[in-house]
């Protein structure tokens, strides 16, 4: 399971970085989204992967899942969700203002009124 998890984090990060370096806003937004998925998985795994164990310590429990990463991931998901929403709105605004979806607003067209 550890191998699968780390593979997923790696593949998502690689795809995210690749897409983020593209020249159009849509792939960039997708890249950022993939990157946040990767980091969410990573955070989730930072408390070690445990299956079928309760997230609390109580008498008689021999092992447990670390509950803190779950709380961290929840926070990170909420924040990244809000950020994605914002960056999509900004990209749409940039498309409207600059007349194209190039991340640099393509100067030759951007200068036209």
């Amino acid at each position, binding site marked *: 399971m550890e191998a699968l998890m780390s593979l997923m984090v790696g593949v998502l990060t690689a795809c995210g970085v690749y897409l983020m370096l593209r020249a159009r806003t849509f792939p960039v937004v997708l890249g950022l989204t993939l990157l946040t998925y990767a980091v969410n998985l990573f955070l989730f795994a930072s408390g070690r992967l445990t299956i079928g164990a309760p997230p609390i310590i109580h008498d008689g429990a021999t092992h447990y899942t670390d509950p803190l990463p779950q709380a961290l991931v929840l926070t990170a998901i909420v*924040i990244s969700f809000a*950020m994605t929403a914002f960056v999509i709105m900004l990209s749409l605004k940039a498309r409207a*203002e600059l007349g194209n979806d190039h991340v640099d607003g393509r100067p030759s067209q951007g200068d036209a009124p």
Partner: protein
Amino acid sequence: MTTLTIAPVLIPLLAGTGLLLSRRLIPLWARRGFNLAAVGVQVAVAVMLLATVSSGEVLTYNLGNWPAPYGIVLVADRLAAWMLLITALLAFFALFYAMQGTDRGSRHFHSMYQLQLLGLNGAFLTGDLFNLFVFFEILLLASYGLMVHGGGARRIRAGLHFVVLNLAGSTLFLFAAGTLYGVLGTLNMADLAVKLAETPPEDVGMARTAGLLLFAVFALKAALVPLHLWLPAAYSATSAPVVALFAIMTKVGAYCLLRVGTLMFGPEAGPVAELYTSWLLPLGLVTLLLGALGALSADELKRQIAYLVVVSVGLLLTAFGLDSTAGIAAGLYYLVNTTFGTAAFFLLADVIASRRGAALDRLRVGPKMSQAGLVGGLFFFTALLVVGLPPLSGFIGKFLVLQAALESARWPWILASVLTAGLLGMIALGRSGSVLFFKTAKGSPIAADPSASIEAWQHEHAGNGTMRLLAVMGLLALCVGLLAASGPMVDFCTATADQLLHPQGYIRAVLAPLSAGVNP
């Protein structure tokens, strides 16, 4: 007394929410007054907090009353209170400037302004690494909104880059925090400091990786070379009061580098000791020089000032990189001067742009501006302050940094870089000043380009120019005050640096169990 620690977070939160909800209910002047009053209260709170902690006491506030390593803790020591006061004072004058008409540009300016302060204050106070991330996101989300405030193609384009870059930075931050938690099992900064010092040998590599990832994140926020390229574009495109407030944003990065560098990776951190200082000094010096070259090459005043911000970041981090009490103290003194000085300069550049018609703040021949004597005098004063020439506080700050540098083994490098950068900055500003104020022509030889016309329109519809100059003068007066009170200020900075380099007091205050009754 412990409630005082959380007040700088609560006041902007409540004020920002109140402003958001009451936007349709109360008129603009009432919102302006409310916002200014809220910032005024924050200044008062910061002064009280500073007075309380100046004795060396470290105040803590356990959120939800969970004891420290398990819950989130807010910590106010000398450095945090110092930063809070600078932020609140800066915000007051920037807001005063914005109230003269700039705040009409978007509907939620005032609530976003308070939320930005919430993020800043929280970042300075928090003692938990993940909570620092959350406050970073709050301040960034507010700054995205403020940054594109007023709109226009140029602002949106610069804003898009700023947002995407910072989102990538946030992802790095999470990777770093996750790694530290995975290795050490805690996110409380004081607890991390204790555990990092006892890192088992097989985990040292991971801990160092996480530490350097954090370094990259903070360097991005602080605009340290090679992560400085976003700053000139972003700062020169946005509106004046916003960029004046942003003068503290690079200092957030510098603050985090200092805090994390001394607390978690300080001299007593065992296997991960001195992780940051070996990077800070060379990168700081390169930042200084590249910033100064940028200032020479800039073709408009705002961009030039933005490069001078990069220069100041370089000098600041060079001072912090000296890793001595004198160096950090000099940096803290210089930090105040550069924050207020560059903020005043950005505001002044906007005033200048509003009086030069279509020439705006471009460094070309333009029409003669009204009140040229007064504006020119202020320009001269601010330029001296920012470049660091005697007799103003900029010079004292720079002098203290150089004096502290003499104790370092690398003093020739530091002196050569700092003095060269100073000379280049002086040439750049001298040239801009002579172009702006002496080379004037009747009529406007520059054809107005459409992207500039929006700004020109905004200037025409902006309020009273003299009131705007008042905000500039207020910030400059603060610098004069800093100069007049140099003795006590330097003493305080030295005490702060001493507290930072001996983090046991901080760690003890945070980790002391609740039952011991540490709360006064």
